[in-house]
């Protein structure tokens, strides 16, 4: 079990820093390729959502923690942006010709658990995917 943490003010390099943090986590454990692929996609989608919408594109304080365990991979995000009116129970893919609106549905599809909640510290996201036996 290992945990890797990134704390940043969001900006143009944030997605690259997030990816580097994931790669550091992957380097310490033999995580299956498909598990890594799913988690990298979900992380990119949620991080993009935070960067673009948590403060309408303005920088927010973002904390990311990657927790690699023998049977699962978990990632948590916390940001100090404004609340999000999100219903994760109502996610669906938009029409194929739509140019946006797929991010959360894609993340949900590749994870075993995707949750969001709000408290005085800000917005919290939890992403979880089991590793194959």
């Amino acid at each position, binding site marked *: 079990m290992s945990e890797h943490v990134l704390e940043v003010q969001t900006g143009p390099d944030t*997605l690259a820093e997030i*990816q580097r943090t994931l790669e550091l986590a992957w380097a310490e454990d033999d995580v299956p390729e498909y598990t890594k692929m799913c988690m990298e996609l979900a992380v*990119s989608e949620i991080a993009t959502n935070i960067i673009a919408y948590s403060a309408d594109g303005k920088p927010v304080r973002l904390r990311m923690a990657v927790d690699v365990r023998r049977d699962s991979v978990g990632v948590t995000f916390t940001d100090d942006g404004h609340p999000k009116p999100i219903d994760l129970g109502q996610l669906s893919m938009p029409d*194929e010709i739509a*140019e946006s609106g*797929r*991010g959360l549905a*894609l993340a949900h599809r590749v994870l075993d658990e995707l949750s969001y909640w709000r408290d005085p510290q800000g917005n919290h996201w939890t992403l979880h995917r089991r590793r194959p036996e």
Partner: protein
Amino acid sequence: MSDFATRTTESGVVVVQPTGRLNMTASPSLRKQLSNIVEGGKNRIVVDLSTTDFIDSSGLGALIASLKVAREAGGDLCIAAPSPQVCTVLELSNLDQLLRTCDSEDSAFDE
């Protein structure tokens, strides 16, 4: 960000080759580049994904927007050499029919 590499085939198809990660950082410039190509009079485009390591919904959005622009101009857009990651994301998004994969650039838009 500078433009991605492009080449034009003998049959006039423009091939654009994005490199790296097609996410929120890179997708706007790809979208702009493809739009400029169509505005410049070329409307048959192949997006060569052989050096694209990763795509997410931002990259998909850029490809779909560009497909629509090319079709509105009377042309079309297809992709080539998608990685397993790209294929998986296309399938998960139900876009593997809309964003067609072509076998070769020169015959990409043959009937």
